[in-house]
């Protein structure tokens, strides 16, 4: 994570490359709509995994595609379960709904879930996150959704209690039907709990914050740190990118004191193309390897 332009894509590419060279099977996923990985690897990338090295594949997530697919699925479900007349005018509404706020980050969640399932046999999934605002919304989806879901669950259970009471007293001889809405809410609850636990678990998710030696990037990083703390997500590493000198802006070292650091020195040439990335790793091999092992 990090402010726009600090080098999240380059840092994630370097991290993936480092892990792949150590013999791990790695998938690098670009969740950033800017899709810099295509430029970095000088390859046309898509949602189909493209192998750039024997142990390293890269994919790019197309948010638009996921939003369209999701809305199509919901519409299909509605048409299947509703009577004809109720579902009559839905097309019109769905054309508007696809522009609703919130669907952008949900598209990323859908892609994240799909990738986690499809590539569960790999050693590492490295996600190149979008800039701060969208990335924080992405991480905030599970806890925020769970707040709503818990309240809706309580209300639904109250409804079912009353409905069952009426059925019992009126001696209505029909099989006690299972409430499909309640089942769906419970299913969603389990889904979001699983995601929340995955994001919060330091053994499953390592959130790395990339920052540059400039005041704006530092200030935004502080806000990111505080937001992540609020939703119970811990930073596992601080990547100080484009470093020229020692830190002179570090707020007396207090804010990020407990977080392990990885320092990427400033590269004189742009790190574009797999050869350049490899050269950079070889050139800084000793220091990066030492830091990685420490982490």
């Amino acid at each position, binding site marked *: 994570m990090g402010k726009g332009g600090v080098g999240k894509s380059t840092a994630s590419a370097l991290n993936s490359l480092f892990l792949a060279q150590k013999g791990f099977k790695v998938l690098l996923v670009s969740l950033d709509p800017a899709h810099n990985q295509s430029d970095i690897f000088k390859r046309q990338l898509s949602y189909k995994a493209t192998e750039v090295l024997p142990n390293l594949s890269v994919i790019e997530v197309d948010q638009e595609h996921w939003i369209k697919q999701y809305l199509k699925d919901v519409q299909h*479900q*509605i048409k299947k379960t509703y009577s004809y007349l*109720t579902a009559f005018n839905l097309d019109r509404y769905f054309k508007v709904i696809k522009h609703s706020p919130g669907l952008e980050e*949900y598209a990323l969640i859908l892609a994240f879930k799909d990738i986690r399932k499809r590539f569960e046999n790999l050693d590492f999934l490295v996600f190149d996150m979008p800039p701060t605002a969208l990335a924080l919304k992405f991480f905030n989806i599970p806890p925020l959704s769970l707040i709503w879901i818990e309240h809706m669950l309580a*209300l639904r259970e109250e*409804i079912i209690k009353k409905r069952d009471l009426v059925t019992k007293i009126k001696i209505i001889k029909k099989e006690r039907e299972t409430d499909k809405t309640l089942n769906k809410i419970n299913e*969603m609850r389990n889904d979001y709990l699983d995601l929340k636990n995955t994001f919060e678990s330091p053994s499953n998710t390592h959130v790395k914050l990339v920052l540059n030696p400039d005041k704006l990037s530092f200030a935004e990083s502080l806000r990111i740190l505080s937001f992540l703390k609020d939703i119970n997500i811990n930073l596992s590493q601080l990547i100080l990118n484009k470093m020229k000198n020692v830190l002179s802006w570090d707020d007396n070292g207090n804010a990020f004191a407990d977080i392990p650091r990885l320092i990427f020195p400033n590269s004189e040439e742009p790190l574009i193309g797999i050869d350049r990335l490899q050269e950079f790793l070889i050139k800084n091999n000793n220091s990066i390897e030492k830091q990685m092992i420490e982490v």
Partner: protein
Amino acid sequence: MSKIRTTIREIWGKVAGIWQVADGVARGKAVEITEYEAEELYHIFGIIVLGSFVGLPSPPMQISLDLMPFMEKELILMMEKVDTAHEPISDLFSVLDID
């Protein structure tokens, strides 16, 4: 003898019929308010889930959309509610049998 038996059976049948109707009415009456409450709760649930469509605070869009396929009853209820929406007190009074 058999005629008397038939008559008794008929009377018994009618008494049982009356009893069944009375029992049904009493049971219906007993849960009338609970039924109304349940219906109102369905309505509240509908408003919460689909509130974004009418400008109310609502859950994240994906929660509403994921539940939409199961919300036909709530949607129909909301549309019916439009008829009584301008006179909510009279609607409540008719349920509570207040003249």
